[in-house]
């Protein structure tokens, strides 16, 4: 018996007011995959994540998550939205934010209980943020906030983790720590991460895909200049993989 695909997209098309955002997307994510999706801003990266979450219904094509339509699998998806999506002065503590991830388990009208608090503390421990549990969310640094939001995604014990531009707010010194955390997490779940930061993504992910309305997917993490150019519509920096990651700049 073959393992069930965690995510499966077949010929998915989405458009906003007639302008295509995603066109003919085919994608498979297996268990323990760590897939990085890169592409320019406005290339449909966030849209693709929202299709996987079931927040956007495609006009054409089929989406399944863990064998079911996305809205039925949502409790098994952990989602880390883009950093800028909330009010940083909001009067809420880190542990309260993390407990929001337990909503699906607690359900409507039932207050969070001791089990939920324990799960939140465990998730904060995993991301190394337990000491900051009582802090107001906006008092943390960008990297710490990102960890708190990953804890919120982990607290429901997901089988799929979706990250939208997770490194945008993380300073470069913290990025390696951050990717090491993801390395550990992929032992337990599939991870899909979108980013416009080509350098960072390609070093740590197992598989890479380029997205600009269409998806250029090729399983391995080797990117050819042709694929990058097709994605970005201009020559770009190309990263070569070796023992030490380094960049090769092609002629412009």
């Amino acid at each position, binding site marked *: 018996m073959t393992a069930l695909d965690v995510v499966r997209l077949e010929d998915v098309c989405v458009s906003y007011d007639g302008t295509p955002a995603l066109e003919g997307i085919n994608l498979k994510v297996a268990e323990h995959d760590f897939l990085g999706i890169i592409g320019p801003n406005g290339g449909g990266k966030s849209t693709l994540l929202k299709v996987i979450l079931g927040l956007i219904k495609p006009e054409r094509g089929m989406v399944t998550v863990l064998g079911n339509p996305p809205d039925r699998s949502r409790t098994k998806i952990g989602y880390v939205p883009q950093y800028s999506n909330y009010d940083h002065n909001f009067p*809420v503590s880190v542990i309260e934010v993390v407990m929001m991830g337990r909503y699906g388990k607690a359900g409507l009208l039932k207050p969070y209980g001791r089990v939920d608090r324990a799960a939140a503390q465990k998730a904060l421990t995993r991301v190394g943020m337990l000491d900051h549990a009582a802090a107001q969310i906006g008092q943390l640094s960008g990297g710490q906030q990102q960890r708190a939001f990953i804890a919120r995604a982990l607290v429901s014990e997901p089988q799929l983790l979706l990250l939208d531009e997770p490194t945008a707010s993380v300073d470069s010194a913290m990025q390696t720590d951050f990717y090491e955390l993801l390395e550990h997490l992929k032992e337990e779940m599939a991870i899909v991460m979108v980013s416009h930061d080509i350098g960072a993504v390609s070093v740590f992910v197992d598989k890479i895909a380029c997205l600009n309305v269409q998806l250029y997917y090729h399983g391995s993490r080797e990117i050819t200049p042709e694929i990058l150019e097709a994605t970005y519509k201009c020559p770009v920096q190309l990263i070569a993989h070796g023992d030490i990651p380094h960049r090769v700049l092609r002629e412009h």
Partner: protein
Amino acid sequence: MFEAFQFEFMRNAMLAGLLASVACGIVGVYVVVKKIVSMSGSIAHASFGGIGLGYLLKFNPVLGAMIFTLLSAVTMGLVTRRTKLPEDTAIGILWALGMALGVIFIGLSAGYAPDLMSYLFGNILTVPFTDILLMAALDVIILTLVIAFYKEFLLLSFDEEFGIVVGMPVDALYLLMLCMVALTVVVLIRVVGMILVIAMLTFPAALARQFTHDLKKMMMLSVVFGMLFTFGGLWISYALNLASGATIILLSGLVLLLSYAVTGLRGKVKARGGPA
């Protein structure tokens, strides 16, 4: 001031102030953190249509206001969620339509409209006991909703998109929150008037936010500030013979601005690494 307590109208005024502070303190916190201040202002002004209807059909204008605020809250919620009409356009339309209807209804009602000014600008000294009972009932409903839906309203205010992801019925909860605002407007109308309601929904909560990062503490502080402003304003208006509703608002506005000024100065001192 103390001899004033022996009068029934003064006791009623204190009771009205107390009930109004509870509603505006708690719901005001959501209005501020969810950033629906203009939305709430629109709902408050639309209540004038109901007040006018009350005059025209000769029933309690406060009940008319309740019908109109609830209707406009639901309309507002549905229009902003289900159509592409920009939110601030919807706010403007509802705001003006409600007021216009009120003016027409009052014009149509025979004779002159007694104590119309008290609905527009509030008069805490003339709140009848039946309205106090209504205010108490609405306070109970609001408190029950906030306790029951605390975690839902927190998530709704903080990160709606994540609420959808974890399967929360965000649109229904948003409607419920707007209806709570509508009921709070009704509680406040007699105290500060429909035009100034928005101040009581904003000032105490905004001031409380200066002192805490905890939503529950913010609600409690905001209720306390609401009471201090109401009673302080009432006392000043009594001593200086000023309009009570406007005095309450002016007092709370001044304290809020003062608190912002102090915070701003402190921030500057800190930024300069100033005196220890």
